[in-house]
Each structure stands twice: as structure tokens, then as C-alpha cells.
């Protein structure tokens, strides 16, 4: 499956995932601790500089992933334009853009395997308590493996619907899709038991 890691490799790809995530939490906490448009503007410029340091292509991809925020930015612009609280509106806008941009930056420069490694090391204390984290690791692998499979089966259901009906495919295909998911689950469970189960 395609992850959101950027195909354009930049310097931040080689930084340690745990460090990036730690810095991200600190930065996000700091963003929400201030109301000052000036400080938030500096932070936004810093986030922009991070993207630019990765080159034009990387920066453009980063800008694209911020697009999903436009409805909210529109609401803020209208709201604060009408109420006249311009400084507050600018602060909210800058904070939002910077927080999402920084989080996206970490996602874009960290490979899925590194993220999973961080998750695994965060769970180390749980393992030391004697609890198995194997169920979690196995289920992560199962979701990654079965999401494209189920999506393809859903696509097949949509296509066979189109072959039969002039109307657009509707919610009716969700029942067979869920039934297929259940069937796959039963088979996976049987296969796991046949291979010695979870113990």
C-alpha cells in the first residue's frame, strides 16, 4: 500500500523518527500555548523554511497536503472579518496552518517501518509487564494486507452493479462488502489457529 511518505528524499528522512515525533509534540504544544500573531507568524515562517529546505517539488507536495484546510480557513476569514477580531483570526489561521504543516512534515519524511518501530518501542514497557504486543503487531499487518483487498472487492461490486443497473451504485453494496470482510476474518482466524494460534 502507498503510504504518505514523500518519494522526494530530503535531509529530514535520515533524522531519527523518535526525535522528529518528540520535537513535533513540543512544537505543537508551544503553538497552542501562545496567542501572539507575531510569535505564530515566526513559527509559520519556520515551518515554511523546513519545506523549502526540501526543494521545490517537496514544498509543492507539502502545500498540496494543506489544501484540506481551506474550508476552515474560509470560515475563519468570514467570521473574523465580520466580527472585526482580525488579530485573533490571524493567530488562529497561523496556528492551524503551522500545526498541520509540521505534523505533515514528519509524516512525509518518516517511513512507515520507522513509525512502526517507534510504536513498538513505546510499547516496550507493556511487554516488560509481561503482556504480549504480538496481537497488536499482527493486527496492524492484517489491516495493511487486507485494506487493498477489500477495496478491490468493493470496486468489483461497484462494477457489477454498473453492469446491471443504469443507476449509480448505492449503499446496498456495503452489505456484501461487510459479509466479505467477515468471511475473510473467519478464514484468517482459522489459518492462525492452524498455525498454532496466538499463544
Amino acid at each position, binding site marked *: *500500500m*502507498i503510504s*504518505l*511518505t514523500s518519494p522526494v528524499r530530503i535531509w529530514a528522512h535520515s533524522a531519527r523518527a523518535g526525535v522528529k515525533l518528540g520535537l*513535533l509534540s513540543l512544537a505543537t504544544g508551544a503553538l497552542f500555548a501562545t496567542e501572539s500573531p507575531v510569535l505564530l507568524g515566526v513559527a509559520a515562517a519556520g515551518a515554511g523554511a523546513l519545506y523549502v529546505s526540501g526543494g521545490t517539488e517537496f514544498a509543492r507536495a507539502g502545500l498540496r*497536503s494543506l489544501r*484540506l*484546510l481551506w474550508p*476552515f480557513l474560509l*470560515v*475563519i476569514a468570514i467570521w473574523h472579518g465580520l466580527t472585526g477580531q482580525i488579530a*485573533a483570526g490571524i*493567530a488562529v489561521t497561523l496556528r*492551524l496552518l503551522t500545526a*498541520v504543516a*509540521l*505534523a*505533515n512534515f514528519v*509524516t512525509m519524511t*518518516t517511513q512507515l517501518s520507522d*513509525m*512502526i518501530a517507534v*510504536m513498538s518501542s513505546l510499547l516496550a514497557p507493556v511487554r516488560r509487564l509481561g503482556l504480549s504486543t504480538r*496481537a497488536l503487531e*499482527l*493486527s496492524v499487518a*492484517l*489491516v*495493511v494486507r*487486507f*485494506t487493498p*483487498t*477489500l*477495496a478491490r*472487492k*468493493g470496486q468489483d461490486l*461497484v462494477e457489477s452493479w454498473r453492469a446491471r443497473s443504469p*443507476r*449509480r*451504485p*448505492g*449503499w446496498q*453494496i*456495503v*452489505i456484501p*462488502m*461487510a*459479509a466479505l*470482510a*467477515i468471511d*475473510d*476474518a*473467519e478464514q*484468517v*482466524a*482459522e489459518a*492462525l*489457529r492452524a498455525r498454532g*494460534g*496466538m499463544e
Partner: protein
Amino acid sequence: MERNLALIALFAALIAALGLIPKLTLAFGVPITAQSMGVMLCGTVLGARRGALAVLLFLALVALGLPLLAGGRGGLGVFASPTVGFLIGFPVAAFVTGFIVERWRGNLALVSALASVIGGILVLYVFGIAGLAFMLDKTLTEAALLVTAFIPGDLIKAGLAGGITSGLARARPESVLSRG
């Protein structure tokens, strides 16, 4: 154990797959994403605990950087966006929905639909609105105004989740664990 694990994982994959296939026409010719219906179904089919775990698993994979949210969104950015409250509310919504279906032994379609309204809309929107209010620096009432437009669509999804659950109970009776 293996069966619970496989069902939780496959329902997490189902939520993701519902966001990946093209939008379905749910009612009145309006195409809406079926993903939040997947959250309701986790509760109505798997029950409270397993349903919530399936949704948590789905969210964990989104956070790890997989583009599993409708429209190919994902990564840590969505947890810093104004809609984060809805994401946090997802597992709670599935839990409450499942809890109601487990305890209230009435007609499965009707109970599932009502449970989806309470869990998948009422509870979910409390989290969603609180998140919006915090992220956009608005009051709760102001934030609530922003999301009222989505309630009719979600009511339709809750009704459909009821129908789908009873359809599944007929097709795969032993797998509707909320009534197990």
C-alpha cells in the same frame, strides 16, 4: 482470541476500504462518503469493546502515515486539523453504539439505527464540536453551527447502518457478535 483479532482487523480494513472506493449514492442522489458508517457498523456488528478496538486500530494506522481517511487523507496532520475531535470521538462512538445494541434486545435493525444515532451522531458530535471549538478558538455554540449541515446525511447513514446490520445478521448470523 484468533477470531476476535481477525474480525477487529478486518473491520478496521473495512472502514478504510469504505473510504477508498468511490463515493456511493446513499440517498436522494447525494453522494456521501460511507466511512463514518463504517464506524457505526463496527459498533453494531462487533459490539462495544471489539468495535472500539477496530476503530482504534484504524486510527493508529492513519497516525502511522497511511492515507486511509476518505479522500486519501492521513498522517499526523489530520490529528492537528480542526476535525481532530471527530477522530478522537470515533472509538467512543463505536463503543457507545455497540454497548446499546448489546444491552437492548429489540428488533435488530431498529435498535442498530437508534444506537447509531446516539453513538455515531450524538456522542461523536460532542467530541467533534469540542475539537472544532478548541482548534478554531470558537465557543461550543459557534462550533456546533458549523456542523449542523452534516447531521441530515449522518441520520441517513445511521438508518442505513441499521438496515445493513440486520442484513448481515441474516447473511452471517454467527458473526454479528453484538448479539452473540
